[in-house]
């Protein structure tokens, strides 16, 4: 046998590490993805939505924010395959004469961005409070968890409606229009942190009893370091699962608020405000203004929930079926 094979064998003996890519391809995660049709389709649709959102300025034939390009005479044109359709607007136009396709692209972008940013804020608050409550325990735990309970006893929408309505009333709609994105992120982010905090606290309580935490304390590591570097990575799988679901929830919350007129203004429509703006015309036959963004919204939320379900099954070692 050649020298090469012995070298290879020796390498295997000392446990040479395969490349990251190879390890990923050999993992349970990849295997389960490969065999799960639902996960694949969901991931595909989700990626399409994300790419559409990211490339909105490139893909959209019109800029819906540019008032100069909008002609009110083009309003309520049905999709191009319908009678009376215009080949320039394949999904038709809304009541202001904006191209639906462009508006939906920009709207998806806004909805996803608000959803993801809000969840990042939730995760940030939830991780800090959840870790502190679980690791420090005692009084800190009681105070934080009672805060979470109180927060959860108000529904997210109620808190959001009150806060946003007060903001609009006291600072005026002008300022609100400018700050709408930030306000929505803040409100949805702050209203939902207890979901994260509770999930994380529960896994921290389980993790902190493990010996590696004792070992870290015996090493003389400071508590914040043990919390963030040793315990947090071990609680990542529930965090990942809850994140997918929470992004979907945040998108729904944003859409609901916009539908109620408290979210994104009509001049910068998100999917929710598009649905809302078309609602007035639905009975006069212009169904596409509401229905098309509605289908997109449902599709995005559905695939995210399906992905979350799949992820939960994969990351749960108790369900591991080889």
């Amino acid at each position, binding site marked *: 046998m050649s020298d090469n094979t012995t070298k290879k064998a020796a390498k295997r003996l000392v446990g040479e590490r395969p490349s990251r890519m190879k390890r990923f391809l050999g993992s349970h995660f990849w295997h389960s993805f490969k065999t799960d049709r639902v996960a694949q389709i969901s991931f595909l649709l989700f990626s399409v939505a994300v790419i559409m959102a990211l490339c909105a300025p490139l893909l959209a034939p019109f800029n819906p924010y540019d008032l100069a390009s909008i002609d009110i005479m083009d309003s309520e044109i049905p999709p191009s395959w319908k009678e009376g359709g215009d080949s320039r607007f394949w999904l038709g136009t809304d009541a202001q004469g904006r191209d639906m396709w462009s508006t939906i692209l920009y709207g998806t972008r806004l909805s996803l961005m608000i959803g993801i940013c809000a969840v990042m804020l939730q995760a940030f608050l939830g991780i800090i409070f959840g870790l502190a409550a679980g690791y420090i325990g005692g009084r800190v735990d009681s105070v934080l968890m009672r805060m979470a309970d109180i927060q959860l006893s108000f529904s997210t929408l109620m808190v959001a409606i009150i806060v946003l309505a007060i903001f609009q009333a006291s600072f005026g709609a002008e300022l609100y229009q400018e700050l709408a994105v930030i306000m929505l992120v803040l409100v949805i982010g702050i209203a939902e942190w207890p979901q994260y905090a509770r999930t994380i606290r529960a896994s921290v309580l389980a993790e902190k009893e493990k*010996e*590696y935490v*004792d070992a870290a304390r015996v*090493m003389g*590591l400071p508590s914040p370091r043990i919390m963030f*570097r*040793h315990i947090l990575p071990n609680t990542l799988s529930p965090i990942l699962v809850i994140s997918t679901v929470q992004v979907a929830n945040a998108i729904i919350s944003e859409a609901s608020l916009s539908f109620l007129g408290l979210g994104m203004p009509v001049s910068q429509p998100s999917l929710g405000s598009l649905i809302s703006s078309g609602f007035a015309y639905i009975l006069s036959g212009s169904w596409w203004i509401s229905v098309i963004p509605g289908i997109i919204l449902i599709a995005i939320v559905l695939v995210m929930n399906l992905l979350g379900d799949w992820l939960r099954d994969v990351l749960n070692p108790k369900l591991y079926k080889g």
Partner: protein
Amino acid sequence: MPLLSVNNLEVQFALRQGAVTALRDICFTLERGERLGVVGESGAGKSVLGFSIINLISKPGAITHGEVVYEDQNLAVMDNKQLRSIRGNRIAMIFQDPMMTLNPVLTIGAQMVECLHAHRKISKAEARAIALDKLKQVQIPSPETRLDQYPHELSGGMRQRIVIAISLLLDPDLIIADEPTTALDVTIQAEIMDLILTLCKEHNVALMLITHDLGVVAEVTQRTMVMYAGRIIEEGPTQEIIHNARHPYTHGLINALPEMTTPGQRLNQIPGSMPSLQSIPDGCAFRARCDRAIEICKTQVPGLQVQQDVKVACHLYSPENEVPHG
């Protein structure tokens, strides 16, 4: 001056049923480079003793009395920040199960570097160099690759070697090893014990070996301490304790070794079990299981009697009750 001296240490756990005393009147000293074995049944308080030395008893437990003097500092009254500079740095600890003591999501290298960074201001490259050197000292094959591996990629014996390497990282004065070989394969146990012994000798590190394996204690340690129901009941040079046990409990322990019975015979077990810490009877805690108990054992807790270089807590050895023993 001894490296470590523990004086009248008492540890209590505040449970719902009231305070339970896990350790009482613990007094002993440990010299630099000395190897001390702590033996006793499960629940005798051995592990609690290990943790209480670095003042790391988790709630609801706490040191309620006494002192743990390391060099000239009393660890029992130190604040957390000062304690952190001792833990891992001057006093290291090795646990029973290497499967559990390494963080599953961090590489070996990351865990070692982190431990170094907690105590020394050095660059990452320097830290890795030290880590590599320690891995070599614990005779791990191809140490360079190990640094980037995760604990699950290694075998139990290998992991325990890593844990030992981590405990050596900062060249501590004292290593507390809490049953370091119990979770390992029998063939690996001897190797690991050997390694600990050699490293302690080489670096003049004091070792406090907590175990129930008297064989290991006989091989590794110079002095032995026998614990029962939260108290030290016998303490002295290992050879003396093994060959000339004074306390009836120590006697029982040694007689219970399978080597002490002829094949085919039943093992000489000590009848009964240790009383739970919540209901320690008056007098000597071992009385109910002792075949040589006398009247006074029912009422008085025996104090430690000095007998040449051995200390023993048994009424049979107090001057007024001196009974010839066999």
